[in-house]
């Protein structure tokens, strides 16, 4: 896992959920962070803006924790750079 990317995703979660960064690790689940569906929707929007990617609806429904979120963003960024390359 890209640690820098993970840190950026965690920072986005902290901003969206308005909680301290220290409370979030790559192993945190959305449930543990008390993130409901609106919070998750808000997070995906922030990630799309921050990373310039488009997260499809199917992926949005399956993301339930920090690790899978980071992995998803990593994959989208790779696809983006591949498409550009």
């Amino acid at each position, binding site marked *: 896992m890209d640690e820098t990317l993970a840190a950026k995703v965690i920072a986005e979660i902290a901003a969206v959920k308005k909680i301290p960064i220290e409370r979030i690790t790559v192993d945190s689940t959305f449930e543990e962070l008390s993130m409901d569906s609106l919070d998750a929707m808000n997070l995906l929007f922030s990630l*799309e803006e921050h990373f310039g990617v488009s997260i499809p609806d199917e992926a949005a429904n399956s993301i339930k924790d920090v690790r899978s979120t980071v992995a998803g963003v990593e994959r989208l960024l790779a696809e983006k750079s591949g498409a550009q390359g």
Partner: protein
Amino acid sequence: MVTGTGIVCALGLGAAECWGALREGQSGIRPIQSTDVSGLRFQNGAEVRGFRAEDYFESSRCDQMDRFAQFAVVAARQAVREAGFNLSPETHSIATPFGEACARIAVVTGTSMGGQTSLDRGFVAIYKEGRPRPHPFTIPLTMYNAGASQIAMDLGITGPAFTISTACASATHAIGQAFWMVRSGAVEAALCGGSEAPFSPGILRAWEAMRVVTPDVCRPFSRDRKGLTLGEGGAMLFLETAERAAARGAKVLGEVVGFGMSADAGHLTLPSVDGPVAAMRSALNDAGMAAVDVGYINAHGTGTLANDATETQSIRRLFGTHAEKLAISSTKSMHGHALGAAGAIEAFATLMALSEGILPPTVSYTEADPECNLDVVPNIARARPVEFALSNSFAFGGLNAVLALRRWEGN
């Protein structure tokens, strides 16, 4: 019976402050500060000052509510507190004060434009900033029922809850429906009223384009009037049956005794004489009142050339010679035209006028207009005990709603 009132408007952040301003004839119309008005033909508005959402809501909840919904909830909380229910001071929200009765209480809210300031912000993101999509909360922020939904969530009310949108008559239609639901026994109590927050660049320009907003301040019934002044805010009433109020030992503030409505079925924006006459007559009939019983009318009184002259004709036609004895005022001269909240703010003003025996004035009045030749209580409030009053709301689209209210003397 009205046992609680809540109000947030340009005159203040609560009932005492707002009534104080109404009684003193103080206007809340000032230069608009919350949004960019450069290049607009008007610069004045009746904005709510000193309202900080974070004083009332957790930060994450602030993000989930447009300003119009925040006003609705804050006014609803005030009304419920005044009605004698305890809200949880710790959480400052989700208070569920009603226990088992929560399913027998209704929430009926009015709004003309809902959360369109949030939609406006979203459109700026798309069309101006070139972003692919607006914030994902745009839909739940914008929806017209957000006020009713947020009140229900906040106070744990699980009974019938819905929103009425009839432009400038929205809150009056909402209070009227709630009144009928309580009177019919469909519910035991209801929170009802309206809220509005229309100060965004796009919405202000849409109003400018209609050429009904004054570049000055609104001067209802005055010969030199040039149009309305937009306002914002929210007001809610807690209505309950006389039996329920008595059983709780609640203090009654006044009574809604009748409701009438009509459609002009005429011009899209020009008012008619007949439509308002029909609505006022219907409210009197619903209350079992005669025209001569009425002592005060809180007029729709927008300050446009067309409304004020036509409303005068309507009142003269319905009341005949009794029109000479009526006191009529437009409190919009102080709290501005808060559109879908206006009817609730004015119902509050009317209830207070009845209970205090003081009729709020039409301020900024400079010159008599032969076309508006009624006693409009110019500039200074008048001490006059009145038992029955009407509160008029006439919407663009020709939809008219009128409440009949009565002073309560039983406490």
